[in-house]
């Protein structure tokens, strides 16, 4: 079953990664940033000289614009197509780009009247000032040209089926930001093409139908595979965890509980039975005693070290991207960033194996966060089966959102919680269609995992508990108190963990990843073994803390002086026995140990998640508080706060509920989730009546957390790594303008390409001398009126492709970005690159407040926007510029934004 995604994707993955041999080459480059390698403006000066002549030649009478006939078949659905015959009509409703765009296209008409020389700031407009007189003839042509070719500009990528397409166009380099608008426009074009073709033949109809349902099929497959992989991980991890303690010789593949499945003699102390052999039993044939303890201790440490060593070295050897939780990176990727092979097949394999190993090593980490990463890997791999998603990064992110939901769904057995998690925490762009698909995907994944039944408890998590006890109104006070404690613990954890991660990043410690893992594992194992609550699997500990003390619970935690008379009636409240007090002390020790160890564990170079340790921290706190409340109620049942509920002798306080609330509080404080957290918790318990306590605790914890430290752990790690993530939760509250942010700054020139006067050599020189990721195309150097935007990568590909395929392309060939037929060409035949030109770049004016610009970047998912003044191009604002500006405004170091 695992064969399928691997086999299906080897080819595709290699295709996509083939173009990114050296992602570092694009690592620190920036769009239109200041870095022109040669001196300021020297290439553009030369260019403008040449352009002066060429533009005049364009205005000669010989250049009556000749329009090429488009493939109008592609765009016959576009509304308002025929109404735009007036060339001077302000083109406010582009056919394909969506109505939400205020193009700068209307601006040329105003600029021709106002002359562009007046209030315009000097930067960038230097060449344009003199060229005003020329703008009039250019303008008419420009307007009609623009209108006419807008379809073509957008439809270039929609024609991916046609044979003359340049390979690789529409893909992105590694560590680059995607352009959501462009990708969505591409998909719309493709969709129109399919709809149009559908009437042609039955086969095309079938293809159309396949295209229509491929999204659902894809998420179905993602759900299936996610469920299976999660089942494998659950079973494998529980088996290997018990391998630390002993083995089941009759059937080595069973863990301790399964080994003693049909044994009647399970002793209640350790859960051992005669079929299960502890290591001490095998080597010294005794189960009790000092020697046995030492041998068990030794084996525990050795196995833990072995597992940790395997996990760390596998990660280091095969897929370094598999380390960590993965959620910060998934968030960044979903916000429109490319990290190649972060969701690849090796990452999937190594992360799955590595998380089993590192959970079994007894490290203070969980497998729930990595499950999200694993599911996203599956989503990414499977999306290559469907070209609609595999070839379009924006569409692929819809599948990834659904996959993330499936990941949480299998991690907690909470499908709805998963969908909400995807919506609240990880996803950036989440339309309703994705919501439904996520729902379906999460449902399928949970169903599959449930039918695999990895824990033998009919649920997909180990710590599923069922509650139906009422709570007293006054209990809200301790619940909120737990929320506050949870927020404090969480903030403490985040700060300490970040401090440690930063230390690891900048110190020598970071050079010894495997050694670090081994040392932490050793310390964890040595400390954890003596305390039974840390020795056991963390999920089991959570289960123990969540569950009520019934007759079937033999832990010292349930050592109450009570007599079980009827399992169906309410358990009476009782005094705590000595076991409870001992257990409480051990739990407090466990809390301290887990908190400290988790700080050092999270961020190590093994796959590690955060949910389970935070849940455990909270559950311990909550349980201790719950026991305190219970004893208070037992000793003073008549206090007004219990409003008489406890005087009847019933067990009015449930410590397990406190544990659950505490767990929610800490997890909420660490991740700053609210809605999805509450839903996950109540899906874990199957009780709706605890929503109010959980909500109160989650809210209190979030407030306390937000007050003490601004960011959740994932946002903090995104900031630490400097990922280009533009958080949609933050508000931009400064009064800067687009002109303050845009590149180039004053006294620097903007690298532009002219639409029809640069030769191939010119462009290649420009590409060599500058490192920008894209270039605006303007009418001419003098008339910097915007024509479109072309990406560096596309330009490179197109030039290489043209040199290879088209005859007669030399360095002297003109590169033409218009659809105008060139004048009697004396030199070599021109190279038409209109196909790669984005004719509908988003533009703003230089006076646009940054608040609006940031909003546009967030909501439209822009990669860059062009800044105009009086219709003339002034500069470019890229996502990186925005991120740096936001950081600068928040008094942080803007240089921490590393990529693109």
């Amino acid at each position, binding site marked *: 079953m*695992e064969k399928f995604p691997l086999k299906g994707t080897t080819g595709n993955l290699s295709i996509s990664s083939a173009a990114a041999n050296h992602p570092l080459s694009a690592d620190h480059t920036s769009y239109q940033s200041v870095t022109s390698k040669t001196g300021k403006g020297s290439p553009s000066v030369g260019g403008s000289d040449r352009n002066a002549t060429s533009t005049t030649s364009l205005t000669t009478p010989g250049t009556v614009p000749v329009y090429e006939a488009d493939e109008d078949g592609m765009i016959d659905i576009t509304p308002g197509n025929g109404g735009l015959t007036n060339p001077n009509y302000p083109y406010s409703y582009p056919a394909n780009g969506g109505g939400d765009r205020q193009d700068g296209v209307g601006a040329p008409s105003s600029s021709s009247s106002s002359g562009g020389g007046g209030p315009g700031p000097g930067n960038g407009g230097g060449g344009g000032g003199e060229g005003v007189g020329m703008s009039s003839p250019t303008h008419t042509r420009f307007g009609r040209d623009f209108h006419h070719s807008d379809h073509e500009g957008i439809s270039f990528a929609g024609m991916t089926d046609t044979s003359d397409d340049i390979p690789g166009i529409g893909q992105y380099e590694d560590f680059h930001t995607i352009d959501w608008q462009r990708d969505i426009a591409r998909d719309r074009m493709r969709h129109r093409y399919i709809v149009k073709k559908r009437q042609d033949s039955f086969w095309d109809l079938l293809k159309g139908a396949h295209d229509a349902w491929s999204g659902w099929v894809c998420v179905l497959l993602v759900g299936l595979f996610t469920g299976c992989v999660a089942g494998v991980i659950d079973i494998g991890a529980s088996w290997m965890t018990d391998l630390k303690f002993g083995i089941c010789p009759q059937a080595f593949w069973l863990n301790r509980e399964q080994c003693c499945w049909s044994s009647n003699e399970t002793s209640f102390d350790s859960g051992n039975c005669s079929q299960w052999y502890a290591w001490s039993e095998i080597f010294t044939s005794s189960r009790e005693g000092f020697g046995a303890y030492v041998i068990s201790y030794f084996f525990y440490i050795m196995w833990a070290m072995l597992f940790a060593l395997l996990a760390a070295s*596998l990660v280091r050897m095969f897929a370094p991207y598999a380390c960590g939780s993965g959620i910060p990176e998934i968030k960044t990727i979903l916000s429109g960033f490319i990290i*190649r092979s972060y969701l690849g097949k090796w990452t999937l394999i190594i992360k799955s194996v590595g998380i089993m190993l590192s959970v079994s090593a007894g490290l203070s980490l969980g497998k729930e966060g990595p499950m999200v990463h694993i599911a996203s890997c599956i989503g990414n791999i499977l999306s290559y089966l469907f070209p609609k998603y595999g070839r379009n990064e924006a569409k692929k992110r819809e599948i990834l959102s659904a996959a993330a939901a499936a990941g949480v769904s299998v991690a907690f057995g909470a499908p709805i919680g998963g969908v909400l998690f995807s919506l609240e925490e990880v996803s950036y762009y989440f339309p309703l269609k994705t919501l439904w698909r996520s729902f379906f995907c999460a449902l399928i994944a949970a169903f599959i995992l449930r039918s695999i039944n990895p824990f033998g408890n009919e649920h997909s998590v180990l710590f599923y508990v069922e509650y139906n006890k009422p709570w007293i109104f006054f209990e809200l006070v301790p619940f909120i108190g737990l929320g506050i404690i949870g927020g404090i613990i969480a903030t403490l954890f985040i700060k300490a963990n970040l401090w440690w991660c930063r230390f690891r990043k900048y110190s020598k410690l970071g*050079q010894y990843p495997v050694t670090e893992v081994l040392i932490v594992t050793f310390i964890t194992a040595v400390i954890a073994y003596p305390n039974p609550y840390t020795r056991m699997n963390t999920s089991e500990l959570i289960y123990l803390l969540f569950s009520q003390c019934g*007759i079937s619970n033999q832990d010292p935690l349930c050592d109450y002086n009570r007599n079980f008379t009827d399992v169906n009636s309410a358990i009476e409240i009782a005094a705590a026995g000595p076991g409870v007090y001992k257990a409480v002390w051990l739990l407090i020790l466990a809390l301290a140990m887990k908190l400290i160890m988790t700080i050092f564990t999270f961020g190590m*170079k093994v796959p590690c998640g955060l949910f389970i340790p935070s849940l455990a921290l909270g559950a311990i706190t909550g349980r201790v508080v719950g026991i305190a409340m219970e004893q208070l109620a037992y000793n003073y049942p008549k206090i007004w706060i219990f409003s008489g509920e406890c005087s009847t002798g019933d067990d009015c306080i449930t410590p397990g509920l406190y544990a659950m609330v505490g767990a929610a509080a800490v997890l909420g404080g660490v991740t700053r989730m609210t809605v999805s957290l509450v839903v996950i918790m109540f899906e874990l318990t199957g009780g709706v009546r605890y929503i109010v306590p959980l909500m109160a605790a989650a809210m209190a914890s979030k407030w306390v957390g937000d007050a003490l430290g601004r960011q959740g752990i994932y946002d903090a790690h995104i900031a630490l*790594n400097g990922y280009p993530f533009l958080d949609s939760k933050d508000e931009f509250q400064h009064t800067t303008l687009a002109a303050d942010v845009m590149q180039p700054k004053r006294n620097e020139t903007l690298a532009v390409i002219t639409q029809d006067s640069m030769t191939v050599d010119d462009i290649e020189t420009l590409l060599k001398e500058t490192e920008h990721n894209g270039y605006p195309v303007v009418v001419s150097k003098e008339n910097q009126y915007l024509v479109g935007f072309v990406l560096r990568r596309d330009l490179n590909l197109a030039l290489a492709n043209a040199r290879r395929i088209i005859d007669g392309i030399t360095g002297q060939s003109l590169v033409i970005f218009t659809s105008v037929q060139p004048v009697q060409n004396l030199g070599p035949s021109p190279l038409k690159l209109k196909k790669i030109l984005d004719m509908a770049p988003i533009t703003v004016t230089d006076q646009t407040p940054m608040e609006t610009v940031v909003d546009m970047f967030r909501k439209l998912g822009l990669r860059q926007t062009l800044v105009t003044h009086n219709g003339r191009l002034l500069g470019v604002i890229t996502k990186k510029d925005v991120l740096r500006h936001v950081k600068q405004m928040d008094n942080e170091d803007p240089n921490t934004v590393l990529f693109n």
Partner: protein
Amino acid sequence: MDRKLLCSIALVVVLHVATTQSQSYEDKRCKCICPSLKTVDNTTMEGTDRMLIIDNVPPNKCNCDGVILPRLANKIKGLKGQEICPRCDCKYENRNTTIIKVVVIIVIWIISLLVIYMLFLMCLDPLLNKRVKANYQEHTNEDVIIASDSISPKPIGPSINGRSRHFRDVYRNKYSGSYVTTTIARPTGGTGSSDSDSEVEFLATTTTTHYRHQPHDDRERDDTAVTVGNGQDMHVRENNVLNRVGHQQDKWKRQVREQRRNIYDRHTMLN
């Protein structure tokens, strides 16, 4: 390369399942926990003793009446049953041991394959790269000679070819006989049958080879390998496969190196 790997896994799993179909472990149980009989007798408060009863009954019978009373019929007289039953907690559980077995075996296989491959890469790769770099020229020459021998046009650059050949060679030298299974673990495991012949021959001839051979030695060895594996078509195809696989592997290795540099050296990601 993954396909091959997975095929072998699947085969082994199927074999395992087929051979050990008879299992002594049941998949269903009814687990009841009751206070021990003493507590019922004496009605003392110190009733921490529990009684565990596990039985295989249908789910609707999984209660005190179906499980406990028949068992304790001789111990309990009269109305004790009415006393003990309300205090018992019965739970019906089921599981699937076959799935558990298959999954655990798959996991063991995957981990061991990965570990073997990792050890292989760790021990041989640095050595290999060093030697390939040193003997690059010689190997190209040698390969050209071999190519002209086998009357076949070389499709892609001979450097990779030489490297993979070399790779195999060193590999054999180092692990002569002891790690034969690792051939499966390697993604380059698609060697033809002629190769296995030559390998047997080879292993027979080289008993205690030191892995630091002179280039001369290597060439000799290669020649033997070629002459022993006499099917020329086989040889060509094998070369193609090796080329392709070697190419892919190189690309993948480059990617991983890049990732390693980002994460472990420059600390730009995933801190």
